[in-house]
């Protein structure tokens, strides 16, 4: 694709990266667009694997990390994830990032040629998984991981092996049934054609009888085995006193098999084996396709889960207070025990509950509490796992790990809650009425015709049960859902199951977490009072800092000049010399200690704070000259998305853990009434609000944080947005690759469009059943008509599903 684009514009073709074909930035004297591509190309060429460039279909910039993966060799990790083989080799599975095409597969599978000791690497492209086996004496898992990293596929431990094994068993069982059904339908069709030809051309009684007996010998064992999934769900539904579409299906299939066999033995009457076999086969195909799509969506979601950090930097030996001296070693998270000292670098998620041992920094606790402003921490402060270190490295003494952390306890409560009550699906509701109508009609038909002859009554009643077997009804939903799921996944909307689509299609209350969905999730300067020129001075002073406030100020303005003599006081502000002037930027009380203020400035500070913004004072040469208001700005598309959601019939509410004033500011900016904005909500408050709203109708919870996860599980459907915490992804039914609320509106619209398609399909199939049923009741049905009508109705439904407007 990139190659084609490059060919269109000669300017680009002149200098495109040897590895990824993207244009090489002007001024970069290299054949590569970036250092990452250069490293990867070097690694590939050094191993003589140039064939990669001939095999590949698509190219993208490579990225690698400098990580040494030593934690993979830690005994704690090996115990959990490495299996020993009886051939003396060790086996492990890794998730690899960016596995896309044949070239990627080839490159990864060529590892044994590059690394002595690696016995075999097998890639599963669909699951982004590589199974590696190696000789532990000759090489190590860390070395293999480093190799994958160097060639551009960053490895992660594969944590879903048990789930995979379970799914594989299910998949294989269904595939075997599909194969048996396929073979049955093929052979029954051939036998059927002979019988139908005999109807017109004449056929001796002995031959007809022989063909009928052979048909029975194929149909009864073949279909009896292939249709077991339907029988099983129908039985389960009966036991639970619930209605399920498989019930009328099973009745139709069983009636067909029993009545057909009876007719074969009696030597008179119709057999419907070929139509039945076609029906079972089509239903199994639909089921298999749906299963595959669902697997794909959940694999993608699981890959995201695996990407969350699973290692910690442990500091061993004598612990000094000086952060710079100790060199931490990487260990898997499983190896950390309470009392260990852990280094948390800037931008990393804190892996344990603990107490700050050394260092001062700012912590983004948004994922846990929903609070958008970073919290400043100093030695002695308590930290929770799952929060993000944003400003400076910290050493943390672990007090609780794994399931005992606050996050861990929250997860346990979510697991208890997320056993969602199964919704009554539209098709099942219809199937319920269908069973009643068809069986009473069959009884009436039997009684009516029995007045003339009991045999005729049984014949017509059975024909009714068989031809009204709701094949198209059963295909209608899975096909529409599969088309929708596939198209949604291409848009970056991962829907974990068909149920979620139906839950999203009925409008109700939609709770939105403010941070990350309605707002950008990052502080920015939204208002400025006083000297506009001071912005450049503030940016200069803050240029070297990593604090979110500093980043916001730097994004707001170009720095005036390089700053000198910078002193940062964490939690208070920064002091620097810019262009010969003393510049002070920070929290107003701290700046006010060493700079003069005026009543006007105090007024501004109070005004900004009242509006839910964070006031930052800027002083120059001992006088406060300006006040900046920092806040998390509303996303540009949020307004339009909320209008779209309202049009679809949703009542949108804001439910956030952030400060009440901040939430109200966002609500006001988006036109959400104050009464519908709830701030300072704890995770428990959110659950309460969701449960209360469920009494009034369907509830969808949109969020990204650990604090939202419980509410998501309690809601009828949960939507997690990009960048969401691991638990939020797990609790959600839908995962959006983009964090914007616009996609939420698109998802809701797509779900509604899917349901419209399903309804249309159901109308089609019911119409077919009406016609076939009427024919059967009047005794006019003929196996040939049944054989024509049944596939025709399925084809109509298929065409209608493909035409669906959902997620276009």
């Amino acid at each position, binding site marked *: 694709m990139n190659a084609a684009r490059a060919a269109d514009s000669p300017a680009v073709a002149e200098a495109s990266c040897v590895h990824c074909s993207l244009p090489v930035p002007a001024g970069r004297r290299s054949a590569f667009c970036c250092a990452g591509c250069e490293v990867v190309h070097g690694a590939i060429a050094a191993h003589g694997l140039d064939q990669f460039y001939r*095999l590949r279909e698509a190219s993208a910039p490579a990225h690698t990390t400098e990580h040494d993966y030593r934690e993979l060799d830690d005994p704690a990790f090996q115990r959990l994830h490495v299996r020993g083989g009886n051939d003396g080799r060790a086996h492990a599975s890794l998730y690899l990032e960016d596995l896309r095409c044949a070239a990627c*597969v*080839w490159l990864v599978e060529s590892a044994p040629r590059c690394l002595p000791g690696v016995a075999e690497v097998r890639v599963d492209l669909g699951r982004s998984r590589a199974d590696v086996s190696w000789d532990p004496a000759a090489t190590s898992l860390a070395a293999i991981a480093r190799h994958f990293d160097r060639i551009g596929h960053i490895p992660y431990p594969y944590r879903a092996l048990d789930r995979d094994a379970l799914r594989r068993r299910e*998949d*294989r069982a269904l595939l*075997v049934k599909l*194969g048996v059904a396929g073979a049955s339908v093929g052979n029954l069709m051939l036998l059927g054609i002979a019988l139908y030809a005999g109807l017109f051309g004449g056929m*001796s009684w002995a031959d007809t009888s022989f063909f009928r007996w052979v048909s029975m*010998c194929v149909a009864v064992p073949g279909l009896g085995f292939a249709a077991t999934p339907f029988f099983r769900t129908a039985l389960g539904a009966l036991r639970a006193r619930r209605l399920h579409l498989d019930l009328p299906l099973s009745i139709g299939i069983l009636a067909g098999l029993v009545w057909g066999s009876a007719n074969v033995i009696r030597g008179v009457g119709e057999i419907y084996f070929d139509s039945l076999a076609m029906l079972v086969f089509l239903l199994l195909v639909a089921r298999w396709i749906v299963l595959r799509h669902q697997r794909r969506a959940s694999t993608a979601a699981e890959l995201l889960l695996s990407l969350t950090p699973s290692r910690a930097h442990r500091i061993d030996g004598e612990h000094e207070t000086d952060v710079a001296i100790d060199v931490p070693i990487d260990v898997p998270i499983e190896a950390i025990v309470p009392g260990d000292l852990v280094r948390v670098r800037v931008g990393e998620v804190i892996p344990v509950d603990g107490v700050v041992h050394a260092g001062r920094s700012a912590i983004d606790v948004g994922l846990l509490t929903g609070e958008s402003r970073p919290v400043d921490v100093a030695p002695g402060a308590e930290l929770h796992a799952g929060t993000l270190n944003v400003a400076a490295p910290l050493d943390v003494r672990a007090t609780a790990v794994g399931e005992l952390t606050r996050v861990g306890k929250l997860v346990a409560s979510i697991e208890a809650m997320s056993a969602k009550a199964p919704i009554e699906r539209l098709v099942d509701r219809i199937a319920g009425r269908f069973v009643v109508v068809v069986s009473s009609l069959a009884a009436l038909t039997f009684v009516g015709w029995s007045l003339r002859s009991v045999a005729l009554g049984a014949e017509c009643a059975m024909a009714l049960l068989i031809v009204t077997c709701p094949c198209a009804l059963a295909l209608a939903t899975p096909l529409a859902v599969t088309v929708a799921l596939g198209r949604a996944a291409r848009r970056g909307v991962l829907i974990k199951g068909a149920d979620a689509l139906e839950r999203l299609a009925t409008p109700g209350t939609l709770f939105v977490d403010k941070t990350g969905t309605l707002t950008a999730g990052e502080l920015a300067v939204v208002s400025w009072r006083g000297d506009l020129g001071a912005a450049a001075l503030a940016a200069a002073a803050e240029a070297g800092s990593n604090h979110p406030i500093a980043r916001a100020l730097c994004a707001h303005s170009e720095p005036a000049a390089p700053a000198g003599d910078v002193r940062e006081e964490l939690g208070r502000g920064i002091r620097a010399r810019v262009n010969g002037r003393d510049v002070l930027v920070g929290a107003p009380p701290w700046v006010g200690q060493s700079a003069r203020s005026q009543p006007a400035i105090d007024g501004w500070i109070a005004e900004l704070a009242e509006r839910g913004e964070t006031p930052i004072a800027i002083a120059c040469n001992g006088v406060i000259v300006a006040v900046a208001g920092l806040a998390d700005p509303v996303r540009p598309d949020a307004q339009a998305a909320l209008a779209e959601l309202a049009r679809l019939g949703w009542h949108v509410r804001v439910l956030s853990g952030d400060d009440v004033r901040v939430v109200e500011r966002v609500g006001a900016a988006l036109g959400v009434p104050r009464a519908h904005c709830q701030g300072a909500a704890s995770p428990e408050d959110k659950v309460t609000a969701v449960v209360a709203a469920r009494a009034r109708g369907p509830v969808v919870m949109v969020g990204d944080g650990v604090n939202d996860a419980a509410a998501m599980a309690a809601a009828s459907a949960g939507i997690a947005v990009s960048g969401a915490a691991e638990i939020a992804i797990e609790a959600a039914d839908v995962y959006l690759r983009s964090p914007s609320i616009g996609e939420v509106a698109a998802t809701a619209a797509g779900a509604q469009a899917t349901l419209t398609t399903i309804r249309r399909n159901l109308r089609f199939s019911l119409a077919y059943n009406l016609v076939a049923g009427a024919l059967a009741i009047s005794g006019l049905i003929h196996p040939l008509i049944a054989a024509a009508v049944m596939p025709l109705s399925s084809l109509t439904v298929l065409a209608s599903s493909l035409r669906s407007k959902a997620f276009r």
Partner: protein
Amino acid sequence: MSVLYLILPLALAIAGLAVGAFVWTVRSGQLDDVDTPPRRILFDDEPRETR
């Protein structure tokens, strides 16, 4: 037409063998991953030892 009485069971027996073969391929895991193998055929053979 009496040949049918021999041919038909024979044909079905062969079909049964094919089903058996299919079940074996599924059980032995050959159809677990249907995305990767079609790409693997694109790979050339190992280059022969140079010199």
